[in-house]
């Protein structure tokens, strides 16, 4: 049963995407500025570099969340009844949070990175004041509250329609004898995201409040390793949820080109149930160099990292290939970007799994290998998923200029991530404001490829904004 999305609801989605498109470009320019500074081409103070790094990191996480939320809400709303006011409240809180974060960073000087690793926000060595840190963390908390409300609304709607989370994940079809049609992929994915992200957001909100209390009342403190676990659990789950929300665009849009409906088969349902568990318990792979963590947790981090690759590679990536293969499809911008996105996601899993190996992590952790692998599945995965959705919702199949943008994005994007991975192999640390001369070769290439990537995304964003008015009316 599919509902028709209302004009107001569609306009709300367009509002999300327009916000995301503009902020994404701004944050990419921040990223280019950092690479250019590391390459020796720009002379900026270290304090400014780390402020840009903080804004780039937290901003990109937020924007990925907004894109994922827009995609999920647009398609989930065709199966269950969602609340437009809550959807708008989420973007309202997001914008309030963004203003607070930008103010805290560029006026207050906060530069605690997007990870705000406890107890760094309280111990800035004079770089920022307590109030800047509190305003920043409050801004992140407000954005988190918006997302929590958003997920509670999707949860309420899913439960009303399907009765339980297990049914919405297709468990009666997977584990039982039910012969009824399983819920569509969009509902299954949205349910998984609901489960994991509520857990992640509660953990994130808790450590944000704890950090703020610690800043205001230094006598109150917690175990820093516990704080680190809470932060990385939240961060890992939230950023993964952005991918799992965005991939709904692939499930919904690609079949309109291939003529082959993406079905909730048993392997599909099994993969999503596994992913629900894996995303929650795999986060210790961020803490493999914390020798004081229980060894069993580190081993679990590695083993689950390996297993996590199976649903992505064997189900979603392989599924996309099987649906496209000899389908007689005609390529347009939405299909091209979504196909690229599936590849970007699957390709990014490979260096991530390699780094999830404890003995490898020993020499790659916190080198540029890390931004190398996460940019692969975010820049070349989530971004083209969002851009493909933008082209789809504005009914733009593309012209010469869009095709040029696509190839600029492909060449720039892959060049960019490979300079990071290569630098990681060469042991270049991540998050350094100044680089040694021998590291600058890959920095310069990285900056060049970043500029080409931005050119591609600028074309996508401008074309989307140009078609926005027409799409809002239709």
């Amino acid at each position, binding site marked *: 049963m599919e509902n028709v999305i209302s004009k107001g609801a569609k306009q709300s989605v367009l509002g999300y995407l327009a916000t995301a498109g503009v902020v994404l470009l701004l944050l990419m320019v921040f990223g280019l500025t950092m690479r250019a500074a590391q390459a020796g081409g720009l002379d900026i103070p270290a304090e400014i570099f780390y402020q840009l790094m903080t804004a780039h990191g937290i901003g990109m996480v937020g924007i990925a969340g907004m894109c994922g939320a827009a995609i999920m809400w647009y398609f989930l709303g065709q199966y269950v009844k969602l609340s437009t006011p809550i959807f708008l409240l989420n973007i309202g809180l997001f914008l309030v949070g963004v203003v607070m974060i930008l103010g805290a960073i560029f006026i207050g000087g906060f530069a605690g990175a997007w990870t705000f690793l406890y107890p760094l926000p309280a111990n800035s*060595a004079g770089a920022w004041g307590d109030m800047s840190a509190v305003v920043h963390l409050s801004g992140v908390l407000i954005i988190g509250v918006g997302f929590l409300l958003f997920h509670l609304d999707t949860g309420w709607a899913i439960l009303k329609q399907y009765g339980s989370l297990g049914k919405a994940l297709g468990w009666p079809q997977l584990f039982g004898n039910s012969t009824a049609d399983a819920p569509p992929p969009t509902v299954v994915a949205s349910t998984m995201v609901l489960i994991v992200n509520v857990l992640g957001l509660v953990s994130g909100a808790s450590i944000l409040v704890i950090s703020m209390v610690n800043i205001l009342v230094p006598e109150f403190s917690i175990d820093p390793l516990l704080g680190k676990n809470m932060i990385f659990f939240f961060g890992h789950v939230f950023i993964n949820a952005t991918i799992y929300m965005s991939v709904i665009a692939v499930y919904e849009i690609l079949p309109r080109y291939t003529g082959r409906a993406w079905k909730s088969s048993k392997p599909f349902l099994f993969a999503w149930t596994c992913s629900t568990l894996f995303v929650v318990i795999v986060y210790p792979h961020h803490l493999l160099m914390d020798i004081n963590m229980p060894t069993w947790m580190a081993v679990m981090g590695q083993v689950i990292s390996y297993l996590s690759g199976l649903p992505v590679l064997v189900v979603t990536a392989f599924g996309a290939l099987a649906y496209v293969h000899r389908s007689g499809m005609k390529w347009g911008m939405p299909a091209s970007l979504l196909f690229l996105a599936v590849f970007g996601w699957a390709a990014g899993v490979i260096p991530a799994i390699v780094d999830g190996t404890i*003995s490898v992590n020993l020499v790659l952790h916190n080198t540029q290998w890390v931004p190398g692998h996460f940019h692969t599945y975010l820049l070349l995965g989530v971004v083209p998923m969002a851009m493909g959705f933008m082209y789809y919702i504005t009914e733009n199949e593309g012209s010469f200029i869009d095709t040029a943008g696509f190839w600029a994005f492909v060449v720039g994007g892959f060049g960019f991530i490979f300079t990071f991975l290569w630098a990681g192999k060469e042991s270049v640390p991540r998050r350094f404001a100044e680089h040694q001369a021998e590291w600058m070769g890959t920095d310069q290439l990285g900056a060049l490829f970043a500029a080409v990537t931005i050119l591609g995304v600028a074309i996508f964003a401008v074309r989307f904004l140009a078609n926005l008015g027409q799409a809002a009316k239709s």
Partner: protein
Amino acid sequence: MQDLAWNISLWLMLLLAAAFIFVAMKSGEKADAAEVQSSAGKIRAALFWVILIAGVPITMVTLTDLPYAAQSDSTAQIVKAEGSQFNWDINPTQVVAGQPVEFHVTAIDATHGFAVYDDTMTLLTQTQAMPEYTNILKYTFAKAGTYKVLCLEYCGSGHHVMSEEITVVAGGN
């Protein structure tokens, strides 16, 4: 190890890219969907088992030598390292090559990353340096020389200047 990680990642990514390019090139042809899905299902099942069967021994081998020291070794050379914004306090700064070294690593203000680089700026080993905890990192230097310690966990505006040197002398010196 870094070269192995690069080669494995690069070749698997290229293999994946080849599959995507092949399918994209064949996408213009039209075939019966059920027939394609049937073949794809068999290939997927085979792929699943190949990955799983290869994954089990890889997992077991890579988990045999973990860098986690459960207890301090009384025969090792002990080096205490304390990170603070933005320097390392390391004592002693000289050790002997060929004999195990135990770095007892902690921090006083924020989390830092204790990373040891050789003279070619290749990362040899690392651990996190955290307030309230002492991490024991074991390493045996194979040759004499000057090694660098950098901070690999972002710790504030002077993160990139946290650098210290360790001198490794040949055994018997």
